[in-house]
Each structure stands twice: as C-alpha cells, then as structure tokens.
C-alpha cells in the first residue's frame, strides 16, 4: 500500500513544484527578482533551480514507479 501513496506523493510534489514556479514567475514576487539592479543572470539561476528540482522529482517518480 505504500507504493500508491509514494506515487501519489510524487504527483503531489510535481503539482507543488508547478505552483511554486507559478508563484515565482507570475505573482508580485516577480518584481523582486526582476528589479533593475538584479544581476543579469538571475532569471537563468531561478530557471536552473526549477530544472534541478524537476530533475530530482523525476528521479523520485521513476523510483516510485519501479
């Protein structure tokens, strides 16, 4: 029975990551990282962080499915 909950948990984490990405990209938080004095590479760093988290989740998702 743990199998189902683990897989379900992975999907929940995917949704949470998506919502976090939306929060980061679309909410007023955007004004903080998109300030004029932010380093030019900051958007890429945030983007890279999202990709890193997605890769971690994908690995966990595959492990749950095996």
């Amino acid at each position, binding site marked *: 029975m743990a199998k*189902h909950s683990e897989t379900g948990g992975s999907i929940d984490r995917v949704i949470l990551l998506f919502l976090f990405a939306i929060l980061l990209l679309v909410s007023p938080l955007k004004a903080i990282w998109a300030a004029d004095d932010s380093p030019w590479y900051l958007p890429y760093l945030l983007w890279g962080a999202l990709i890193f988290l997605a890769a971690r989740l994908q690995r966990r998702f595959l492990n749950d499915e095996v």
Partner: protein
Amino acid sequence: MKFELWQLFLAGVAYLGLLFVVAYAADRGWLPARLARHPATYVLSLGVYATSWTYYGSVGFAQEQGYNFLTIYLGVTLAFLLTPVLLQPILRLTRDYQLASLADVFAFRYQSQLAGVLVTLFMLAGVLPYIALQIRAVTESLQVLTHESAPHLIALAFCITITLFAILFGARHISAREKHEGLVVAIAFESLVKLTALIIVGLFAVYGVFGGLGGMEEWLQRHPEALENLYRPVREGPWATLLLLSFAAAFLLPRQFHMTFTENLEGQSLSVASWGFPLFLLVLNLAIPPILWAGMHLSPEMAADFYVLGITLESGSTLLPVLTFIGGVSAASAMMIVTTLALAAMCMNHLVLPASFPPQLKPETDLYRWLLWGRRLLIAIIILAGYGFFLLLERNQGLARLGLISFVAVAQFLPGIVGLLYWRRATHTGFILGLLGGAGVWTVTLLLPLFEESGLIRNAIDPLQVLGSDTGDPWSPATFWSLTVNALLFVTGSLLWRPRDSELEAAQACCREGVGPPRGTLVAGSLEQIREQLALITGQEMAEHEVERALKDLGVASEPTSRTELRRVRERIERNLSGLVGPVLARMIVDQRLQIESGARTALSASVRYMEQRLEDSRTRLKGLAAELDDLRRYHRQVLHDLPLGVCSLGPDREVVSWNVAMQAISGVPYRHAVGLPLKALAEPWSGLLCGFLHAQDNHLHKIKMRDGRETRVFNLHKAAIEGPGTGYSEIQPGGTVILVEDLTDLYRLESELAHSERLASVGRLAAGVAHEVGNPVTGIACLAQNLLSERDEELTEEGLEQILMQTRRISAIVQSLVSFSHSGTLADHTPVSVSLAQTIDESVRLVRLSHSGKQLQFDVDCSPSLSAIGDHQRLVQVFVNLLSNACDASAPGERIQVSAFEQADYVMIEIVDHGSGIDPDELDQVFEPFFTTKEPGEGTGLGLPMVYNIVQEHSGSVTIDSIPDGGIRVQVQLPATGERSLNSAQMQETV
C-alpha cells in the same frame, strides 16, 4: 566581411547533404539503435521547438521586450514540469489509440469528423505564417552575409530540398505506428548544430567582443540602461500572457506534438525530457543577452533579429559566420520538416480521406501506396503554400510577431485539451463552437492586421481599438479575448447539448476512468469473414495485412475462434486503422463492415482480463480509496492465486475466468492456455473431467479417479455457484461457477499402502490356520502316496491319484485366495465395477475359516447370487475378511455367525451378526478410530475397522456397528447397488 551567395548556397547544400547522410545512416541501422532511442536524442529532437525565431529572433525580441523573450521557454518549462499529469496521459492516449496528430486526438475525443477538419484548417492557417517566417529567416540571413537581396530562387531551392528530406525520411511509412528513427536522429542532430552554433556565437560575444566576463560586466556598468531594458518589460509587459502562450505551444504546436508524442520511441524518455528539454532551452538562451549587448556595442547596420550573424562578421573569421548561418539553416529546416509532416498527416486524415470516403477502389488498388503518395504530395503542397505565404508577406514584421501569431492560434486548443483530459461532459458541439469563436477572434485581432500591414487587405477594423485595448501590446488582449470567447462557447455548448454515447465512451478512454472492455460480439464469425468484409473498403491486400497485423499485436498465434477473441481483433484493427486513416474514418470502416451484435454480452473472462490489465496499467495513478481498494483486490487475488487447492472459475458462458497456480500445477495446463477458453476447449482429460462434474447433480465428488497418461490420479471435486448482486457500474457481473480441485493422488497412494500393510497383517494372522489347512491335505497326500507304493490294483491306484489331485487343488485354492488377498494392486486396479456379493462373501468366509478352523464356527450365509454392488472386489473382500475375523475373534467355539445380504432401494445392505462377547456401548463410538482396539496387546493393530470405514466410504457406502440385545454385535454395511444411477456415478469416477 562579405560572402558570395554561391558560397553560402554551397555551404547550405553541404549541410543539408550531411543531414541526409545522418538520417540515412540511422534508418539503415549504421548508427547504433540505442542512439536513436536514447533519452538525450529524444530531448534534442524536441529542440525542434527552437526555430529561426529562437535562433535569430530572440535577440530582436530581447531588444524589444527585454527578458520577456524568456517566457517563450519558461512556458515550455512549466508545461514539461507537468509531464506526469499532462504530457504522459496524452502520450498514453496517442499510443493506445494510434493517434498521430492533434486533429486525430480531438476527432477521437469528440467523435467528430468536423472537429478534425476544423482543427486541421485552423492549424494550417495558424502555422503557415510560421513556415513563411523560417523561409524569410534563411533568405534574410543570406542577405546579411552577402549584403544583397537573396533571389526568390534560393528560397525555392531551400523549400524543394526540405520537401525532399521530409518525403524521404518523414514519410517512409504510411502508419503513425512506425517510427522514423532517421528523422528523430536528424532532428536531434539539427538541434545539436544550432545549440553548438549559438553557444559559440555567445562565447565570441563575451570573449571576442568584450574580452571576457569582466569586460562585459564593465560594459553593463557603463550602460545600466541595457540591463534596465531587459528587466523593465518583465514588470510591465505581457509576461503572463506570453507564458501562457508558450505553455500551450510546448505540446500543441504541430511540430511539438509530432516529436513529443508521434515520434516518441521510448515512453520513459518523456520523463527525462521533463527536465532535459528545459535544460536544453536554458543553455540555448544563455547566449542571447551577451549577443544582444555585443550587437549594441558593435552597432552593426542591421535589425537586432540578425545580430547573431552580424557580430560574427566582426570576428574576422570566415568560419564563424558560415557556422552561424548553418545553425540558422538547421533551425529553419528542422521546423519546416517536422511541421510539414504533422500537417500532411492531418490533411490526409481529416481533409482528403473524408472527402473521398468510401473510396471507390479497384480490387488491384494498393491503398497503402495511395496513402503514402498522398501524404508525400501533401508535404510538397504545404511547403509550397508556406513559400507562397512568404512571397505575400511584407518584410516589416519582426520574426517574433509571426511566431506569436501561431502561438495564439494553437492556444485555442487549450480548452479542448482540458475537456479531453479532465471534463467528461465536454461535447463536440462545445468544442466546435469554442474553436470557431476563438479562431474568429484570432483572425480579427491578429491575422487581419497582419494582412493589412502586408498590403493584402485595406482598412481592416482593429477590434482591439474598439475594445479600448490598444496599448501597443496586441498579445494580451488577443489572447484574453480569443480564449475567453473560446472557453465560454466551449462550456456553454457542452452544457446545452448532451454528449453522445460514443463521446462518453471516448471521454472515459481519455480520462482513463472506468473504461470497460469492448462490448458486444462480432457478427462476423471467423477471420475469413473479417477479411472479406474489410476488403470491400480497403481492398484485399490491405485487409489481409491489417488482420495479420492485428493478430500479431494481440500476440495470437493460432486463428481465434471465439467471438470474444474476434471482438478483440476488431478492436485492434480499428486502432491500427486509426494510425493509418485517422480515428473517425477507422471507426466508420469497422462500424460499417465489422458490425457488432447489439445486446450481446461480453464474455466475463474478457471483461475480467481487460479490467485487470487496466488496473495494472493505472496502478501508479490510483490514489486514496481507489488505491486501498486496489490493494484489497490484489490481496484477495493473491490469496486465490496461492490457495493450495486448484481453483477454476467459470463465467456464465462457461468460459474459464480464473485458473490459479495450484490448478496449473495439478493440471499441467498453463494459465494462458486455459483462461478465456470455453471449458470444453481445454486439453483432455481436464475438459472431460470438469465438464462432467459441471453437469453432475452433486456439488461434491470424492476420490474421483482420472487416468492422466500412464498415471491414475485421484481428486476430490467441489463446485459452487457464484452469485450476488452486481453493482451495475461494471461489465463484471457475478455469475458462473467456481470449481475446486483437490489432488489426493499422494494421499490415496499412502492409504493404499496402509491397506496393503493391513492385509499383510491379516495374512500373518491367518498364517496359522493356513498352515493347518494346508497341512491337512498334505498329510492326506502323504498317506495316499504311502498307500500307492504298496497298491497294485489299478482301479484303487487311479482313485488314490484322483484324491491326491483333489487335495492339491484344495491347497492351490487356499494359496490362490491368500495371494489374491495380499496382492497390493495399483490405483488403476481399484476401478469400480459390478461385483457379485455372493462370490465376495464366500471368498471372505473361506479365508476367515482358514484362521479360525479350530473353533468350529458356523457361518450362515444368506446372499442371493444375483445381488451385486458397485465397487472393487479385492477391497470388498478386505472389508468382509476384517469384519468376519472380528466376529470370529469375539465368538466362542461352535457359535454361529450370520451373514445376510438384501436390497434396500438403490443400495445393498449386508449384515454380519455374531453372538459373541460384544463391545462395551461406551466404546462403540471409538471403534472406527485408528489404533483403537478391544483386543489383547499383540492381537490387534487397531487399523482394521478404520480401514473398513475408509473403503466403504470410498464406495459411497456406509458402515455401522451396534450391539444386539442377547449379546453380540451387528455390523451393517451399505453399498450402492448396480443400477442406472450407480452406473452413472461409476462412469464419472472412471474418467479417462
């Protein structure tokens, strides 16, 4: 620096030639197969998303809209983050139902050819500007490098080359089920080229133009407005709108759909792509700001769209501009090839074929060939149309604008996709109304202004001005209004019109909720009839090929005979045809030619198997109560599976539904050769045994013997009806029978050995009497022989010899009785037959007399010679020898033992009465227990009466012991008489 046109033309042709070689090598298997199937190749092939808009246009877009250019890739990242809940279900759907394009998917979900037609037309309208954009990018890049206008002939040559490539490597197979490995590898190669080229240009911008990262930072500090211009539009511009558009474009653009789903070689690759593809896009875009700033620093005389090329001209190298140009060609060509392939498939399935259905074919027509060449012709027409669009458009629009018009167009499919995946109530009416509404708004707000600016039409009304949204950013209002109108019409239309049954069925398949097995049975009763019916539409050759393919896909080796199997073949044919001619036509073909008997029930075994497979496939997606129920189901199934009894359950139509591990071990018939078959189609002797038992009145049969090859095996059989109320939600309704098979062969063998031991013990006990009985005639023979020595009279001699012979016959009879009694026999020897009771009792009495001759007991036997019972002679002798021996042991010398037999209904009753010492009433209940004896130690084993009890039970009889009033014991043995009913039972037991 300036290049000659012919030089660049040759470079482009050489690159495209290399692309041909790569694709050809992959198709021919010269490259390792695992290369094409590697997730990295898949990720790179998705890089077809990055067209010349990305390659050239991103810099211009960044100059105009700052970091808003990143939204085009961040939206893709968001879509790929949702791979498990958004992309995987679509991939599963396209694979399961052989859906080759977005038009196929919508036509399948909404069960409407019109939906497919509209999607195709709208997609054509939306994507043609995008194709034109690619051609323009290539020609303008030539112009940048040569400083002269590229003749239209160059653009045409480029289009022809692309057409050839698409035909050779993208339309090799007719069906979507065959993947084009060469194409996938070639597109991945193109992505690698453009990625490498852009990274090199980016490095040149940083190190060649600014002298390193430090130099670039210094430049940025001197020009703070450069960074502000990047960040300001993020806070003020259409950031969210562009995110939404690219989110939709990530999987709805024809080329993305084609590479993500249609050409997906390994399902698992999509999981890797969930982060791999965004990573590819990140690396690709990392170079854009430095290139933009290098362009601003160097100020080449050109639009920012072509800074990528422009700054390389300042490098002094001839190689770098050519490499950059090649990167642009790769970006444009990959997009055009894949988009054209996707659109050609849509046009064929949703425009050309429906217009010519039903096809008027001659018998010799090869429909496959016709379809293939049709697609190839469509590829050429679409690229030509893109070229025409390129000629029509003025060159005053940025590359990004043309691309975004396409993005808004494909975003109109978002409501349909939501309905497809999550809203079962969505109907084709709602979808069509929504799409028409959204397309209308898109045309008015984006397409007509484009035509007006290009001079194709005049005085078009700008509705955005009318709505007061003319803020200079057309994307947000155009997206908002088109999607709002689309979604409102979609919801309203879906709520006002009820979905048809076929729509509900398709909706269940798309939402993967409670899809039952295919219902009904096929009218056609054989594969031959299926072939004949299909041939009426598809032609003989294709019909045969499709049937063979369906059988191969189903893993059916032999020709299926049951209606259930044929129903599955029909289902498979429909899916395969869907990959060939689209889902709507495929359904029309099978509905028309392979009709279903309405009202016929699907075999329970097929339903169970189908549902089990569905649950297995969906296991990882079950949550909450559904997951718990699934675990419970698995637990119960495992219990049934591991039960040490053979379990065979049958549906109402007597098809085998379950066949557990023990049943496989007992029968030697594997699961796959039993489940789904009618019971009578099982291998012999199981078919006969189980069919016979199913028809028998008794629910329990004990110690049934069955000859299995050389071995005789013994079973207990039990059956029960499966009853209970159905839920009504599922195809799986209770009904049928469950049969339990208990293998007693080993136990029975042990019992036989025990009985043999007991017989040998009896022989031992009889030995003294035997010696005495044999001794008497031997003494007689000795005396007679002595007399004969002195006897001279021939007559007396002859008489003496006859007496000797008589005595030897007596000895032989005694020895024969002993040998017969003590013989162990085999399982097969214990076959029930009609046994004469008089003979059996006489033989038993004779044996018992041997050991108790000293007591001078009297045996009164009253048994009619006509009486007979069903049983095994030797074992019945064992019963009576045991009972009579006990009677003799209990009797005093000279007493009488009465043996009587009489008929009683279907049974024969044998009574053995002695007048001996009797048994204590308290001990009467224990006499049939093993090792219980009332005799002195060493005189009895305590196994005699238990053995009697077992043997009589095996003969479907009964044995009782009670005391009689004047002392003594009465034993009553009841055995089935030889009659019709008994004979039937005997036949059941004698299953061969």
